[in-house]
């Protein structure tokens, strides 16, 4: 009797233990304080994220009760906490912590003026958090002014004003608690844009300002392809609106182009492709082109200076690739080649790629670009039917023989 009861209880405990492994959860709590107001009843969304800032599990939602909230969210390395207050969304990223504390006591006001200082009345303004998420958006009033708030103290925000489709970007930091080192009002000038390509430099970006991703073909009869991604920085004081030309690797044909991670239209030119881009002053934008290479050689002459160049691979091992001497193996978490010294216009890099044997593995590395995503979704792993069934039949037959003989 006692043994059975113990067994029954043990079974119950086993179930509970099973539960903990089946889907672990972390309690996430936080406080949201609003100066001269309350966040009571505001919606809170906690999204579990991976290290790579991808959504890891379904978001959980709750509401603020008084100043506090608490939810149980599925286990994840990071959590993105979103609080919707007064039409604006405020963010906090939790790394290695489970408690969020948010104070909303700052504000930002601004005026949008044209080059001669007159207020502009047709501007849209968007406020973005330092993590890149949209916080709030508004339009200027008849005096050309706008305001946001309450906002977090000591926080970096990006203000993007758009007039006639042309963006103007400013980055501000709100003042800290009681301190004055911050901005609570700005004036955004909106000079007419330029189409002079010389204001653009290749600079910034991760892991490099000029990334060449080399993708192995699915089978040996096809040619590899390459995706070039350039981070363009507008060094001038006017937005750039116009077309830029990207030069093709030798013999390569374009098949897709992207701007800021989205596929876009392009025109073929004698040297490569040209695409329309918009880069705010003192800001960056990413452009990319996907090429089909001719043969297993990539030879690329640069037409712009680049402070850092990275070549990443999909389906190739860098050690099997023969490359020109101005490249060397890099020390990043992903296998890549980087430039030995800054590359200037008219420099050339060259890669000789090995032949692909069998089916190329779809091991994903390299930076996430739109072209990569679309290429990745096309995958047809070869099913080793013959080997598998041959193995099965051979094992069974071999087993028969083995039992007979032994």
């Amino acid at each position: 009797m006692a043994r059975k009861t113990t067994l029954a209880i043990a079974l119950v405990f086993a179930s509970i233990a099973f539960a903990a492994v089946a889907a672990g959860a972390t309690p996430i709590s936080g406080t949201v304080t609003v100066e001269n107001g309350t966040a009571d009843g505001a919606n809170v969304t906690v999204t579990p994220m991976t290290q790579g800032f991808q959504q890891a599990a379904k978001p959980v939602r709750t509401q603020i009760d008084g100043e506090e909230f608490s939810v149980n969210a599925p286990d994840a390395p990071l959590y993105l906490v979103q609080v919707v207050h007064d039409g604006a969304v405020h963010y906090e990223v939790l790394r290695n912590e489970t408690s969020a504390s948010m104070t909303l006591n700052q504000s930002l006001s601004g005026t949008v003026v044209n080059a001669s200082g007159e207020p502009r009345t047709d501007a849209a303004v968007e406020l973005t958090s330092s993590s890149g998420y949209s916080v709030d958006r508004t339009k200027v009033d008849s005096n050309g002014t706008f305001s946001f708030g309450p906002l977090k103290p000591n926080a970096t925000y990006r203000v993007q004003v758009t007039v006639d489709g042309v963006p103007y970007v400013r980055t501000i930091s709100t003042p800290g608690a009681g301190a004055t080192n911050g901005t609570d009002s700005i004036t955004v000038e909106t000079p007419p844009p330029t189409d002079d390509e010389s204001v653009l430099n290749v600079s910034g970006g991760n892991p490099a300002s000029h990334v060449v991703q080399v993708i192995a073909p699915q089978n040996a009869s096809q040619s590899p392809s390459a995706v070039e991604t350039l981070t363009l920085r507008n060094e001038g004081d006017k937005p750039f609106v116009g077309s830029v030309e990207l030069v093709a690797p030798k013999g390569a044909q374009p098949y897709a182009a992207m701007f800021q991670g989205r596929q876009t239209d392009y025109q073929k030119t004698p040297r490569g492709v040209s695409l329309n881009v918009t880069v705010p002053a003192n800001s960056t934008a990413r452009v990319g082109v996907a090429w089909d290479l001719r043969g297993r050689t990539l030879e690329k002459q640069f037409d712009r200076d680049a402070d850092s160049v990275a070549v990443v691979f999909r389906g190739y091992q860098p050690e099997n690739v023969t490359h020109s001497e101005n490249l060397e193996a890099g020390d990043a978490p992903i296998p890549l080649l980087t430039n030995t010294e800054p590359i200037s216009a008219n420099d050339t890099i060259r890669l000789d790629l090995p032949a692909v044997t069998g089916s190329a593995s779809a091991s994903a590395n390299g930076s996430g670009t739109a072209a990569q995503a679309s290429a990745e979704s096309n995958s047809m792993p070869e099913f080793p039917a013959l080997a598998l069934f041959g193995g099965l039949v051979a094992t069974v037959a071999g087993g028969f023989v083995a039992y007979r003989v032994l």
Partner: protein
Amino acid sequence: MTPGTILLAVAFLALVSATGLLVRAYAADDDQYVEYVTPLLGGAVALLTSALGYLTYQFVTTDYSNAYVWQNTADYLPLLYRITGVYAANEGSILLWATIVSFVALSAALLRGMEGRDTKLVQSLTVGVVTYFVGMLLLRSPFAPVGSELPNAPDGYVPTSGQGLNALLVDPYMAIHPPVMFASYALLTMPFAIGAAHFISLLRGNGGLYSTWIGSVTRWLRLSWLFLTAAVALGGLWSYTVLGWGGIWAWDPVETAILVPWLFLTATMHAVTRYRPDGEYTILAPAMTATTFALAVYTTSVVRSGVFRSVHSFASGGIGISLLVLMGITAVLGVGVPFGYWLLRDGEERTSTDEWITRSNMLHGAVLLLGLLTFVSLWGLTFPVLRDAVSGIEVSVESQYYNLWSFPLVVAALLLLGFYMDFDVEGKRRAKIGLGVFAVATVVAAFIAPSETWKLTPNPANGSLFYQLIGNVSALAVLPPVAYVCLGMFKRAAERIPAAAGRDAKLKEAGITTIHVGVALLVLSLPFMYLFAGQASVMATGLASGAVDSSEKPIEGTDYSVRIFGYSSSEFPRNPPVDTYALSTQKVLERGQSLNGTVQTVSGTVTNIRQGPRATVVQLDGSGVWVGVPQANGSSASVSVQEGQQIVAKGRLMWNFVPNANAMVLTNSSMIGSANAPPEEVVPTRVEANGVSMGVYRDGSKVTSGVAGQRKYVQQGGMQVRDVLIERGLISDTYVIVGVSDGTASITVKRIPMMSVMRLSILMLLAGMSLVLLYDPAHGVRSRTRAKKAESAAGTDVETADD
């Protein structure tokens, strides 16, 4: 009260009386009035069948005075789908279920009679289940008048068109999958009744009845397993064709809900083969027998009732709460009573022998592993519900939970199965070596992953050690256990089939072999089917412009290409007869006042046209039905109808609106026209189908061709169903999904390997079980009838060792 409800009510009365008489006879332990039970039950079966027939008739004739008919069908549907609409929603499904259960109860009554106290208990439980179902139907009848759904409509109002059938159910599989599933659930009622009655009998000191019913139990279990397997398989194949995602299994709660009883039923059958009245499994086998039905009801409740999901559905769901009560009853009888008996029974533990590796211990292992597999699925289904109830957060259980927890259990079960079969033939020492070799091979294979594709889940979202470990296991790990099972089964069959005494015994052995090899092939096919499924997409533009570019378009990154031959866009129903969507003047007058204020389409021959200052009015068929077309802002609106022409018009119908007219349909000039060429807006469009005819090529040679696209059900919230193109191949299926919008087709070609192996394995399961069900010398259906004929075993089942 509608005729259908009366049929149900009379059936309910008959069943209540039958249950009452049985319970009385059981309590008093006499045979008074028991002779009335079978006729009452027969009457109930006839009444329920008539009710089902009547409902089907209402569906076929689209009698929209019945709310359930109105909600689940429409005139444009072909006959087949009008019939299948009967079980498209809860009420009709329960009626179907109840009818099948009543047949099961009647057949049990006819086969076993009412002799003896225990028999009466079993029969009263089965009849009780039927009674309960019919009671549920009375609470929420499939025969409710349409007025109950449209409280604001005038008395006697009958809609002229139905809401239509859920678009996903417009599929040939609909005709077969639900009846098979309900039949399997209904068949589980008998084992449940026997198992539960056994424990009631034990607790009352009557010694139990399981041993005398073991033959029946075995047959009912096998029959329900046969149906349940077919139901799961048909459901998987249905989702393969209709859902358009190219898979057979997605761990959807509804799918998991049917898998749980399947797994547990499989475990139960293994326990029952080892049942000895005074030896092993005296408690567990009957307990599991009773629990299977309780599990089926439980999982159905979880996914169907809505009660678990939200407390609010208590108010609306008559079926939900009834299912919940049924769940409570079956849980108490099927789980609580056996468990209580087990706890209370004087602990006379069997002394274990020194021998560890015995066939019965291995069977214990099989039952345990199958039980654990059931638990994995059951827990995945229950966990979100519990979590929701406790913390208010609804979490979804990812498929990787089911896959990664089930995988090692399945591999272990296969190794055990191989060992068991080997042990039978080779004896302990040699079998142990075999197990060692294959176990090592399994572990080694788990590390052999030629590419990431082979790994089960290379980057599991849950980073815990278990998921990391199993997620990185290579699918190749299934190969050694599968080979081991095949080897063991073949060797055993080669030895035992020739040695078996008589044709029946040979056939049974062949059946057992077929089933287990089928399972091994099924396990082999599943991981590869998912891991090696590939897909690639390509866009084709400029379809609607007429000039279709039929050049070959390569699909980037693959050796596939597609070619578009044409584009078609069509609407259904196509040129429907006027009387399917418009009321004749005679019908308008018949329905009279009840149509007042509703929007109707009417048709008739123009007999009079009067041009007024503000409106033109048209008389139809010389009757009191007129159509009025008001003129906008005094303009001289032209109504292009002539006397003698047959027209249709759609608008709001006003009863006694003007003097000298019974009904006036107020319309506008775009909603009136000739019946031969009716205006677009008048003719109801149900389905918009878009498709491209296309060919798929691999390395330049044709793989498949045909039409693929989608159907949009405009009157059902714009729900879309994919028409996929499937080329079934020996090694892999080619599966083409096309989405057409704005003249652009996005074409996705999928390649899914192992589908043929999976289909073969399902057939093997069904064929093998049919053989065992029919020819088992001990409990087979055929053997039993023959034995009866020989009058050698009248009354009770033959008790022979099973294997």
